[in-house]
């Protein structure tokens, strides 16, 4: 009988214990995967940022606006291929004021050229450009409110008083999942005409696409140009911009990382406890094995082999559970309800690998001490306990 088979057979000796250990390991692996997935999902939007896009905003605060004339000045800068602008309008549906979505006043001529990941059918785009009161809506939002092409809808703004009427001209979809499909785009011109005097001729931010120079370099040129003017700007490439927002949550991510370390500790303890209990009960057997010629290294292999088998089985079960719970249950729910926050929520192969490696490594570490004890048994002492 090979050593491996002996190790595997040992698992069937106390089935309840093996099953419980496997369950314990799988729950720990599931929790570990869940936490890793949260961290990954948090950062994925920044990873998918378009590399050649630069966002320029007010240097002091995002709630203050830039003069519209800055757009032309940005366009004239060397390295800027094209530029567009947007303004946070703060729209709400009067009958569903608790439903959050983004409403942006944008330039109809250039917006969708810069944001190529938002796809609008060409005839809808043309119709929207013609109608000053027109809006383009994310398909998910249109679905949520039951808006159809041709509808007239009323929106209110949390910033600008009054009820505003708009015509739904079409919907957009995203080329990637990180594209928020719940945004409303209205004509900046239409808003600007009716805006109170203090808000006229203002834009929230300017987005440029670069060519011939790195985004960082172009951003520096932009900021330098406005440095001598009354209102200064800060320009960041899109990934940096996203990350500076995420930095506000860095302590949560730190805490999650800490907790996922703690869960590994628990995993190790569940495994180690089981192995230690097994070794304690099998001392007489080890004596017999040693007496008939097995070496201490064989015993070590026997104990570690059993632990690793448990780790692998528990890990695999945890992965299976993880795919069901994370991808099918939580992931689907998040996608349907708050796709804006977590566009992706699934187990990546990297995290799955990490979980497996962790449970195997912990199985080795956790069984090291019991294995060492088994190998150091004196045959005479062990045999004395044979009943």
């Amino acid at each position, binding site marked *: 009988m090979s050593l491996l088979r002996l190790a595997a057979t040992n698992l069937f000796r106390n089935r*309840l*214990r093996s099953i*419980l*250990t496997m*369950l*314990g390991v799988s*729950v*720990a692996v*599931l*929790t570990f995967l*869940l*936490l890793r997935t949260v961290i990954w999902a948090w950062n994925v939007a920044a990873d998918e940022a378009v590399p050649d896009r630069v966002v320029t905003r007010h*240097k*002091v*605060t*995002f*709630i*203050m606006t830039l003069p519209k004339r800055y757009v032309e000045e940005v366009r004239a800068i060397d390295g800027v291929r094209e530029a567009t602008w947007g303004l946070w309008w*703060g729209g*709400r549906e009067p009958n569903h004021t608790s439903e959050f979505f983004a409403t942006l006043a944008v330039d109809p001529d250039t917006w969708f050229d810069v944001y190529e990941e938002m796809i609008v059918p060409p005839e809808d785009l043309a119709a929207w450009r013609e109608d000053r009161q027109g809006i383009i809506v994310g398909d998910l939002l249109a679905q949520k409110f039951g808006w159809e092409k041709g509808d007239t809808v009323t929106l*209110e*703004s*949390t*910033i600008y*008083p009054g009820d505003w009427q708009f015509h739904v001209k079409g919907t957009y979809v995203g080329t990637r999942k990180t594209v928020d499909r719940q945004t409303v785009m209205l004509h900046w011109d239409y808003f600007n005409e009716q805006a109170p005097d*203090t808000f006229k001729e203002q834009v929230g931010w300017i987005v440029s696409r670069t060519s011939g120079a790195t985004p960082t370099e172009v951003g520096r040129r932009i900021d330098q140009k406005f440095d001598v003017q*009354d209102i*200064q700007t*800060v320009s960041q490439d899109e990934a940096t911009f996203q990350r*500076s*927002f995420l*930095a*506000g*949550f*860095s*302590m*949560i991510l730190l805490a999650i990382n800490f*907790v996922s370390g*703690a*869960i590994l*500790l*628990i*995993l190790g*303890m*569940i495994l*180690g*406890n*089981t192995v*230690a*209990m097994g070794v304690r009960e099998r001392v007489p057997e080890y004596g017999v094995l040693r007496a008939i010629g097995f070496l201490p290294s064989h015993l070590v292999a026997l104990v570690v082999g059993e632990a690793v088998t448990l780790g692998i089985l528990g890990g695999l079960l945890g992965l299976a559970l993880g795919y069901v719970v994370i991808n099918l249950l939580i992931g689907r729910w998040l996608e349907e309800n708050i796709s804006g926050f977590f566009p992706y929520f699934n187990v990546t192969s990297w995290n799955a690998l990490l979980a497996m490696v962790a449970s195997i490594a912990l199985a080795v570490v956790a069984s090291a001490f019991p294995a060492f004890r088994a190998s150091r048994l004196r045959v005479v002492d062990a045999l004395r306990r044979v009943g």
Partner: protein
Amino acid sequence: MIPLSYNLRSLTVRLTSTIATVVGVALVVFVLASTLMLSAGIQDTISRNGGRGGAVVIRKGSDNELSSIIDQNKVGTILASPGVKKDSSGQPLGTGEVAMIVMMAPASDPSGLSNVQMRGIDANVERIRPNFEIVDGRMLSPGSDEAIVGRAIAGRFEHLTVGDTIEPKKNRPLKVVGVFTDGGSNMESEIWGDIDTVRSAFGREGLVSSVRVQLEDPSSFDAFETAIEADKRLGLEAMTETEWNDKQSQFLSIFMTALGTTVSVFFGLGAIIGAMNTMYASIANRQKEIGTLRAIGFRRRHLLLSFLLESVLVALVGGVIGTLLALPMGLFRFRILNFVTFSEMVFTFRPTVAVFVTALLFTVGMGLLGGLLPAIRAARMSPVEAMRD
């Protein structure tokens, strides 16, 4: 009843396994207690804002101060409304404030950018916020280019130290002259300047974000609210300070509680299974003892109770250790972006009675769940069979 000393002695016989279970439970309770303390800290910090029993007025339809814009000339109308408390000289107790956001570089990461709330205040602030106190330097002089910073962020961002200057508008530097506290409220994560200085720096001349008033007594809020909201031309909305504070903390505190509870439940499940395993092994080893106990007259329910108690006891030791480990978290400050105000706030972990009760209940629950099945098995053993082995 089987004496507890029996359980205690059994636990010390298999010390390694007992310790493993205790440490597992302690880790789970530590995580649970920490998140509960943070959630309590968030609610508590924000609820300390203001003088209690006051009211806040913002533009109708705005969720927060940032998007609320009120004409300065409406402030007089608001302060003259019924229900507003007056001081001995007949002056209404209330003030208009302007709330803005500035980007600052954290002292720990000078290349990063983070949002910090900035507030324009007038001389009335000390009467509206009774807990306000200068703890370093001095109060800013009215109408000057001076600023004071909350204790929670002083030194945490570049230039936020007494004697340094910040520049919300080019060539209009504000000199930091003091550090203030406000009874531990979220105001301590803000920068304050003179209202006119802040307004002109942000191009908001003649506007305020919110108006805060003291009420004669809490019951006069209804009259105040009716007066404010009846005048449709004002386009304003009134709420009590409590309601306002809840609105600011709601999302963050629900988010933290949900995250913490989900993690703790999964975590707890792992620890319960571990505990169950130990308990099964320990019962299997005590088969003869169990048989003997039955033979000398203890009933099934005595055994069930005894083993459940043993399991709860182990869990409680772990739970108490976990909670004690969580207590020093009170020394740490937790920096997080509040979704409602879009600015970073600093919170502390706050140990409350509710936190301990919840952690304790969770611990007992873990002990009961982990011990139930093994205890049932022990209770079901036939004394004859058990002793035969």
